[in-house]
């Protein structure tokens, strides 16, 4: 057994099995709860990452101005950029460390879900090498993979579409932070379309348990993003919905008022 399996994968696999057993034998519920727990554990890193992203985005106009000013002098440009980063109190590699810490945990969670679902006979056999010698683990296996009428082992078209939708909203929400740099904005816009498409494609071929994990993860990220920096790139859509609701409310009020006026007239 390699070090990855021993230190990271095995604990996550066994915790997921124990969680399924504790949550009424529901694997789907266990995936949701484990995704929430891991997001909570990684919250400090995520917040740091969000802060750095936000500050970097805010600096984009200044960086663009510097690029214009020192376009040909790369050395001076780099020096000025470093100065700017220092003044803002951020390290250019500030996003990297939290990402490096989070990455193995996300990969472990992803692998654990795949392993615990034990789609094929080989996977189930393989799972036996990962489980702890605990009564509760042996009683729980193999897990019941039905959740809300869906078999978490098979791919599911509706869940695949939901993955795409939540991914799109999540990337859209963070997209306005790169305003000020047209090239970056263009790239972000492209990502916000390509990324969900890629995940829809993958969800249609991989087990639904993974789709569930991606959906919950995207929702949690959106909630965190909302509390940190508001609706972000979704703000125009939110405003539009609000104004539509406002108009319909106004219409309803005026209709109610008109009908009550009519009643008053007829009474007279």
């Amino acid at each position, binding site marked *: 057994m390699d070090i990855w399996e021993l230190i990271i994968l095995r604990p996550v696999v066994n915790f997921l099995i124990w969680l399924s057993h504790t949550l009424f034998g529901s694997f789907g519920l266990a995936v949701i709860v484990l995704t929430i727990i891991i997001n909570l554990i990684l919250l400090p890193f995520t917040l740091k990452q969000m802060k750095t992203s936000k500050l970097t985005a805010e600096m984009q106009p200044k960086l663009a101005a510097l690029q214009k000013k020192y376009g040909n002098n790369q050395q001076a440009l780099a020096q000025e950029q470093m100065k700017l980063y220092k003044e803002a109190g951020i390290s250019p590699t500030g996003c990297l460390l939290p990402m490096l810490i989070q990455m193995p945990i996300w990969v472990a969670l992803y692998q654990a879900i*795949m392993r615990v679902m034990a789609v094929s006979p080989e996977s189930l056999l393989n799972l036996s*090498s990962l489980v702890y010698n605990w009564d509760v683990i042996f009683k729980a296996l193999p897990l019941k993979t039905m959740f809300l009428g869906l078999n978490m082992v098979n791919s599911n078209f509706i869940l695949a579409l939901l993955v795409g939708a939540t991914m799109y909203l999540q990337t859209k929400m963070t997209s306005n932070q790169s305003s000020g740099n047209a090239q970056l904005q263009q790239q972000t816009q492209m990502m916000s379309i390509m990324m969900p498409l890629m995940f829809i494609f993958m969800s249609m071929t991989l087990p639904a348990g993974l789709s569930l994990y991606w959906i919950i993860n995207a929702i949690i990220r959106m909630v965190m993003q909302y509390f940190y920096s508001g609706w972000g790139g979704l703000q125009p859509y939110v405003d539009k919905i609000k104004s539509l609701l406002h108009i319909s409310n106004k219409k309803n009020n005026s209709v109610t008022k008109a009908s009550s006026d009519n009643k008053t007239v007829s009474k007279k």
Partner: protein
Amino acid sequence: MKKNKVLHLAATSLLLGSMAVAVAGCSCNTNVAQYGWAPPVFDDSYLYVASSEGSILTLNKVNGTLTYDPLKVKGNSGASGLLGCGYGAGTVIFYGSPYINDGLLYASGYDGNVYTFDVAKQLSNKKQLDEDKSMSVISGIVGDGKNIYVGCSDGSIYALDNTTLETVWSYETGDKIWSTPVLNNGTVYVTSFDHSLYALSAEDGSLKWSFATDGPVIASPVLEEDTIYVASFDRSVYAVNAGNGEMKWKLSTELASPRNWFWATPVICGNYLVAPNNDGCIYSIDKTTGKMENVIDLEKAISSSPVVINNKVYVIDNTGNLYSIDPSNGFNFTRIKELETTVNSDLVADGDLIYVHSQKDETIYCVNALNGVLQWSHEV
């Protein structure tokens, strides 16, 4: 500007494409590629092998040469999707032990079909067990000359007419059936993931009795005279009265406690029930009392069922080390062959010869049990 846009699109597609490949690759590693592990079967002259590429091979038992062209099986669909790691669409993977009767070979496919083959005439027929076509068949097949009996992942055991493959009866258990049924004297014994062992009438599928263990059961039951033995995922072994389903004993763990699943089917050798475990140990149990008499730690998981030749037990671990164990000589054990390959398939004995179907490198090995000499091997 337009050129820039195209470049961006290309770069983003490349980045996302490589991410998709990485995730898919990750899923391959974590979800484990499928090879199947059907053990070979034999008649007087030939050895029949269901390959992981969906072919039935007929090998000469003496020298392992191919006798007929491999019969390619056309299944419903591939066992894995576009990003899966198995074989292409239409490839059938076989796990269960096939059955031969009257010149016909019966095999159960992972695509949910039961197939019949007339290898010499290059003919095949098939029958879908699960009507929803979503359930696989992992179980092996047994027969009584009139019907064949096979378990399905839809939780039912099916009795099919030998010639027409029409369903004669089916009995639904509470969960998947992966084990090969055992047939004796008009009774079909089968184990299920629902923790239970069932005794059913071979005639009409009516339930005679059932016996519940504390865990799912994948190993086939083992019958000797009036006792049926069952090894469970609950890390225990049970002896049950074959007539009425009453428990005779449960494994006593004073000597040692098994640390993992009993996946492989145990064998009886003399006065002992020899049960390999996924924890890498071979547990030898007194078949009349249930007392554990001996433990041999081979240190590698064992998912293949052993065979008994000349009062010795032959067992192979999942890295291809073949051992002989002599219960009559203080459980003395010797490694007789190192095949250096992955083996999950049950061993098959024919006289003094042992046939091993390895996975991944997909080879059939014929080893002489008396001296460990490799007689021949054939790469499938």
